[in-house]
């Protein structure tokens, strides 16, 4: 039995899986080409000169990269029966989960950083005055942190749900969390404006406080990343935000491991 937490052979195998999968590879390549095209067009063809080369947000670059690679990252293996073969070998299940997470995080981070580099080059080519600055460095770290955080979320959903349903689950989760955030932000309009109706006000009094409490925790699971802008813009670092990020990440992995430990993956289960 190998005692290392990360299984190197499994790490390599995960990367190979992406490289040679006849279904996923074209989707990934096309999706990534779209992202590259979008990045170049966003930076190069703008109505006014840009002030910084980074035109895309952390979410819109990191999330698609993770989604492209992380769809069905564990669920596909369960559904296709690969796990039955894999777990016949003396591999610890937590090692499997952590290795898959690390492979997904590293691969998506690499794609994200290449995208950032392309954006920077396109931005500098279109507007020579625009050079990478401190914000660019923050962007790079934030993107990597989102890749690692979101990979954990994808791993958790994928361990619970079969096949590639983890992507749908995450999209629904994002949508619901966004709706809750939007409702929380409607407080001035719903509760304190003469615009809203009496029914809306009564409903708002009940719903808005709940949404306000749920907004931050849900967002930190749906879009987990470490916000580094406090280095430039905030009076104090919010340790709550930092601990929330790492806590969600580790908790997601722990849940995934517990689920995998309890999963029946023998041939008899099929």
């Amino acid at each position, binding site marked *: 039995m190998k005692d290392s937490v990360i299984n190197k052979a499994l790490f390599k195998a995960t990367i190979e899986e992406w490289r040679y999968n006849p279904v996923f590879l074209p989707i990934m390549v096309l999706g990534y080409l779209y992202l590259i095209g979008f990045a170049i067009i966003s930076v190069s063809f703008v109505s006014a000169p840009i002030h910084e080369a980074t035109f895309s947000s*952390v979410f819109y670059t990191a999330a698609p990269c993770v989604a492209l690679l992380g769809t069905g990252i564990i669920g596909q293996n369960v559904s296709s029966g690969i796990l039955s073969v894999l777990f016949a070998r003396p591999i610890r299940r937590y090692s499997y989960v952590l290795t898959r997470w690390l492979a997904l995080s590293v691969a998506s981070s690499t794609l994200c950083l290449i995208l950032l580099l392309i954006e920077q080059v396109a931005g500098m080519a279109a507007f020579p005055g625009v050079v990478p600055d401190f914000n660019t460095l923050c962007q790079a770290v934030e993107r990597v942190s989102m890749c690692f955080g979101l990979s954990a979320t994808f791993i958790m959903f994928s361990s619970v749900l079969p096949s590639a349903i983890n992507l749908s689950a995450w999209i629904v989760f994002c949508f619901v969390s966004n709706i809750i955030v939007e409702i*929380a*932000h*409607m407080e001035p309009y719903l509760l304190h404006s003469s615009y809203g109706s009496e029914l809306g006000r009564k409903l708002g009094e009940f719903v808005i406080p709940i949404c306000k409490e749920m907004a931050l925790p849900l967002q930190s699971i749906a879009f987990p990343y470490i*916000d580094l802008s406090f280095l430039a813009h905030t*009076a104090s670092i919010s340790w*709550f935000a930092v601990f929330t990020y790492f806590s969600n990440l580790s908790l997601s*992995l722990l849940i995934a491991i517990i689920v995998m430990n309890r999963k029946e993956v023998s041939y008899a289960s099929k």
Partner: protein
Amino acid sequence: MQVNKKIATEMLPSSLVAVVIILLLARTGTGIYERFHPTQFLSRDLVQWREPLAGLTESRTTGKPVFIYFSGAAYLPKEEQYRRNYFSDPKIADTINAKYIPVKVWDKSLGDTPKDQIVNQMQTKYLQWYCQPAIHVVPVECQMVHNERYKLPHFYTYGSVAPRNTMFNFLDENANWHPLPVSPSQEVKWTRIEEAQTKANLEHKPILYFFARHNDEECDEAMRELFDDNDCEHQQLKNYICCMIYDHTATGSKNSQTVDRLIGKYKIQTYPTFIVDKTSLSGQNDKIIGYRGHDSMEEFLANNK
């Protein structure tokens, strides 16, 4: 022995469990602390926000457009993102302070300030997108009239906040934005005053200036009868570069310099007044003062094309 090995593959890593517990405790502790000391963890705001009433008055004095920020509770995710991404950025804050009169509606510190009448009025009048936070740019000309006549520039993002460059573009584009009145009809293609002469030279067409003012029955009638239906005027109007100009002084607002220059140039005293400017065709300008009905307008347009 086989059984023992199988169990060993399904173990929980104790170090991960310990890390999870420590992080959860740290998260809870810092969460409670930051709930009681929220302001020191909020991003600094470099925009010099004015009170709503003072902002509107200053806008009318200086002629700068009002940059209205309809905010919510300061600690909510999007509020903090707006503050962190936009309002704490020196370049963005400087642009807002220099080119606009920034007004923050609703929130002063933590979103719990009581609501006063002017805030309510501004929400009713200018908040065209109900979800907050949202930003609206309201030029001087639009402040005293009902906003349904105009499509005010607004900035709103659903979900995650847009990159800073998007805000830069928004600020650059709308600092000198002048209202383009919304015609009742979608058939008539209205041109911005600033672009009218260039377009007329390019297309070799005369410019038709429609000078009007708000709350004027005759102007409203002209607007309704000429631009609201699909009669032959629309065919005639295709031969012109159409420009609608509202004199806002009657409603206590200030006109932009361009509008004042045109009113002075054509010596407009009565509303509505129709001017056909044939400078691009080297012809004589023509005008019709007041609205004299459907037929005379049709004749006027036919004669001057």
